[in-house]
């Protein structure tokens, strides 16, 4: 099927984009990479009257490494962030997660911020925003505001962004010194959405575990953070893997669909977490 008719707006500045958003209100939709929105339009799951195409907006395509965060503009494509060496050095979790996002042809066009705005619980980036305690920078007719990850995800495919707000950038928080991170998932085919996935950050000080935190893909309605610091124990040499797996199984609430049952996903994500803990601690 083909998309329904719409009016195509192509602002070239954030101010112009906000002006269009003010004028069209909830009749408009922002078009970034289109890798999630265009299929939705083609299947006629949505038929907004106006598309605000931000691909020509100047200044949104920058990646900036700061002392406490990596700031990613709304037009940074997944591929650009994946290949950025300074972002990788500052926050390896970004690349560790991005290699699992779709296929190169999708990553070349899809944006990292768009994938947060889309808020698919099966997407990798929402779990990264949660684990890094990131912040989404939003701009709209009522001004600009910062939305922390804990308030950003409202439900599956639903965020705290208002219909007339543009996310101009996201700031992924950096971890303290001594933190090891990793990302593991299981998909039926490389590049497909994961049956289950986990992002993990373990902070060590002299072989003592100071904190262990995880967030998940495809097994929770909204990405949130599970604190595993109690379950894992203190000594990096002997993590309590059974307690970690129990905590993960108790935390997640996966659904059953044609690809896997909820029980299978729960078993899978506990095992992925157990292996990832072992891998991070033996590095």
């Amino acid at each position, binding site marked *: 099927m083909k998309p329904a*008719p719409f*009016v*195509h707006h192509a602002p070239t500045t954030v101010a112009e984009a906000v002006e269009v958003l003010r004028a069209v209100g909830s009749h408009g939709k922002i078009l970034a990479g289109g890798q999630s929105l265009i*299929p939705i339009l083609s299947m006629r799951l949505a038929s907004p009257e106006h598309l605000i195409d931000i*691909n020509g907006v100047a200044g949104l395509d920058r990646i900036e490494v700061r002392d406490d965060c990596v700031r990613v503009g709304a037009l940074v494509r997944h591929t650009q962030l994946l290949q950025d060496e300074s972002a990788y050095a500052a926050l390896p979790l970004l690349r560790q997660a991005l290699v699992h996002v779709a296929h190169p042809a999708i990553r*070349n066009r899809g944006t990292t911020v768009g994938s947060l705005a889309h808020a698919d619980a099966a997407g990798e980036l929402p779990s990264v925003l949660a684990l890094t305690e990131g912040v989404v920078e939003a701009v709209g007719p009522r001004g600009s505001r910062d939305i922390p990850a804990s308030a950003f995800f409202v439900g599956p495919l639903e965020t705290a962004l208002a219909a007339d707000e543009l996310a101009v950038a996201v700031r992924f928080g950096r971890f303290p010194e001594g933190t090891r991170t990793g990302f593991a998932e299981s998909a039926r085919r490389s590049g497909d959405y994961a049956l289950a996935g986990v992002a993990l950050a373990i902070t060590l000080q002299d072989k003592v575990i100071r904190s262990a935190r995880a967030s998940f893909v495809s097994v929770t309605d909204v990405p949130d953070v599970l604190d595993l610091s109690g379950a894992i124990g203190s000594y990096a040499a002997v993590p309590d893997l059974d307690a970690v797996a129990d905590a993960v199984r108790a935390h997640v609430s996966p659904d059953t669909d044609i690809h896997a049952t909820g029980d299978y996903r729960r078993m899978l994500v506990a095992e992925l977490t157990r292996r990832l803990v072992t891998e991070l601690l033996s590095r």
Partner: protein
Amino acid sequence: MTGPDVPEPLHEVTVSVNGVRHTATVPARRLLSDFLRHDLALTGTHVGCEHGVCGACTILVDGAPMRSCLMFAVQARAHELTTVEGLGTIDAMGPVQQAFSECHGLQCGFCTPGFITTITAYLEENPDPTAEEARDAISGNLCRCTGYQNIVKSVLRAAEIRASADLGAPPLIDADARAGEAPP
């Protein structure tokens, strides 16, 4: 709002495809894949699923593979597009096309344009892949009839052809012998 009685607004779109400029007048909702096929009559680009999954419509946008079914024609204006028609002709096939021909990398050919564009861009960045890497490189494209073994072989053969072309030597090949070879 454009109701049934109001004609849909049209946009004049000029794009550069395989180095040639083309202009057509289309509504904003025209998918780039349909623009290429219906408005420009460049039917090399195929359309399968129309939601990004099958890869048949993959073209190169400024050299990078992208799904033409997930872009609108009005968004293609500032870019240089390459379709399968731009990667060789029947008399002068590109290295990937030649490899597909030698290795029986296609059967019905429906998926082939998307494989050719994807693999061409992949080999630019990874000129000497292993069989495992070649398999991963094509994981975003679906083929429903050839089977992937010969497509993986074609990727490896294309890498060889490119390498020998880079050395200035005409590729020496025995197509029949090659096609029967086990994957390395």
